[in-house]
């Protein structure tokens, strides 16, 4: 059988790698954890609500337990009292997992440069995507989510160990 690539595609067959399919699946069904800290959590809820409808991007299945989630959206300011809890939640999530720091406070402490707030959630857990804003509007978070999807698609879990 001498079949060219073009002929295969013409028959509805595509060629890809296992990794690509795997990552395509992962990025298209992100399950975020229900983890609202402060003001940003309200906009995060807005993202799920009808107008912005994050279901269009496959990330509407919010889970109440870290054991079923693969994304934490750190939505709000992270206090010194909450930081150990966040660390623990992160450790309870199964691999692969991603972290999105939503808003100024989660990214760098925001306007609260003081004793009570950890100056950036990245001091506690590794952060993949930072979304600026105070609070970021739901479309900004969706943009962050799409950037994360690009990042996930580019990851190579089989050829490289997951960090």
């Amino acid at each position, binding site marked *: 059988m001498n079949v060219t690539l073009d002929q295969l595609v013409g028959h509805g067959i595509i060629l890809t790698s296992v990794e690509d399919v795997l990552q395509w699946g992962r990025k298209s069904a992100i399950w975020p*954890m*229900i*983890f*609202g*800290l*402060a*003001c940003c*959590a*309200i*906009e995060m*809820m*807005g993202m799920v*609500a*009808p*107008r912005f409808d994050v279901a269009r991007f496959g990330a509407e299945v*919010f889970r*109440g337990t*870290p054991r079923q989630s693969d994304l934490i959206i750190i939505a*709000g*300011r992270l*206090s*010194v*009292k*909450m*930081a*150990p*809890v966040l*660390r*623990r*939640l992160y450790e309870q999530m199964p691999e692969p997992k991603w972290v999105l720091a939503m808003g100024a406070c989660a990214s760098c*402490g925001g*306007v*609260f*440069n*003081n*004793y*009570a*707030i*950890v*100056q950036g959630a990245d*001091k*506690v857990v590794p952060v993949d995507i930072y979304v600026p804003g*105070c*609070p970021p*509007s739901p479309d900004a978070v969706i943009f962050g989510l799409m950037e994360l999807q690009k990042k996930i698609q580019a990851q190579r879990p089989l050829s490289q160990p997951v960090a």
Partner: protein
Amino acid sequence: MTTAATDISLAELIKARCPGAVTGAGEFRGETTLTTTPENLHRLLSTLKTDLGFNYLADIAGADYPGRSKRFEVNYQVSSIPANRSVRVKVSVGEDEPLPTATDVWKTANWHEREIFDLFGVRFSGHPDLRRILCPDFWTGHPLRKDFPLDGEEVAFTHNQDSIKPQEAIWKKGLGKAEYALEQGTADVGEETTMVINMGPQHPSTHGVLRLVLQLDGETVLRTIPHIGYLHTGIEKTAENLTWQQAVVVTDRMDYLSPPTNNLAYALAVEKLMGIEIPERAQDIRVLIAELTRLASHLIALGTHAMELGAMSVFFYCWRDRELILDIMDFLSGVRMMTSFINIGGVRADLPDGFHKKVQDFLDVFPASVDEYDGLLTNNRIWEKRTLGVSVITPEEALDYALSGPNIRGSGIKWDLRKDRPYLTYPKYSFDVPVGKTGDVYDRYLVRLEEMRQSREICVQALKQISPRGEFRTADRKISPPPKEELERNMEALIHHFLLYTRGFQPPEGEVYSAIESARGELGIYLVSDGSNKPYRMHVRAPSFVSLQILPALCEGGLVADVIAAIGSLDPVMGEVDR
């Protein structure tokens, strides 16, 4: 409002009823302050409550004056709800001197005293459970003391990048100690049939980072221990390090379901302190914004509460309408939530073109939406079964715990600061204050639903009052910046502008407590000015902080499933609880 003359006689009356307890009486901006000593404090407070009918302890605020021989000051803001008058009791106390607790007089004093213990280190003798409340257990020091640094981390520039000390990772002390509070307070009950479970701070139905430790016997809740402070942000300390006008921005982030109301409470307090009046049109705009915000806030309260009890569709419908309000805010200020639009001296800018139509469009569609929620829930059998007769608050309890807003009105007490202690131009508008009958979850739901209809009525009236163009902030150039045209022609305007933006204004020395009716109740701001350009002390009487205290009393003896109904019906916002 009580006049100054009757307040003076009130001070005399209290002196006569409680001889020797009052060491001084003062008057500032229409507020009466009585000074007392730690020995006489408890006697004075008891007399106020039992003999003089001061049945409502609105707030206790601490303050630190390191230069004084007795460095701490504790201020009790006491009100009488039937007589509608209030008085502040002030006591000075030294570092190692205990104060008698007021928890046996008013139950609401409990968390206030814990907060003062946590943030200032003042001890209260006889307090049932004096431990930290906002800061973590592994914390050292008392952050609101003036000698405690603001901390945080310096911003890196080329000149200082090598000398910056990273913020100390205090949080690491809490690692592996997540269960530390599980045993706390439950150790004395050792029955084998009971189980202790932890709920939160990461939980879908606790309205944020509230944490409850529940001790259960089967499905029955034996004890509930709330742990708060997981969102402690140091807003009060941060505000004390900003100028008066700058501090408006941090107030947005307390009650994040209704940010403009926080701006309003703070702005009114500063205006009271400075004794300034703002133009009537600006007041009308503030009323309109405050009521739109109340609608947005009640929509979330209703939507999330219904979702937690299983009615998911209500959540989606409520969000549909809330987006319309956020659109108005966006149109007005450029931001959806944290507008900081109401600031000291008026509002930030004049209304944009087309504002009236946008608001009118929303007000036209809104009644049908409320009717829709009404139809979905009010006679819904599942909703009734989950809420009727659940978590009943009696009027006596409501006063003892100093509830406010829809929570106290749900118990049948008609107490609404918009009517009872009017501010802004509220007396101009006609609206009803709905009250409940039994004080259960269902009644609090009905009160909120009806309040939405009434708020819409106020919005309709306010919108008619507001002309499209006009004054939107005070003309006092010491407070509000001069407009661009004036800047180009007038040297004096330029000086005012420069001073306002480099140094800010300096209110006179004094202290005030000013409260408004936010979506959750009495949002009070206690301010102390030392005559400088920054607040010496800013304390927030957060309605959710106060109302959340009643939660153990509501849950104990009930079922686990009702805990969710109780939390939702109190409508706490953790940003405001923890500040």
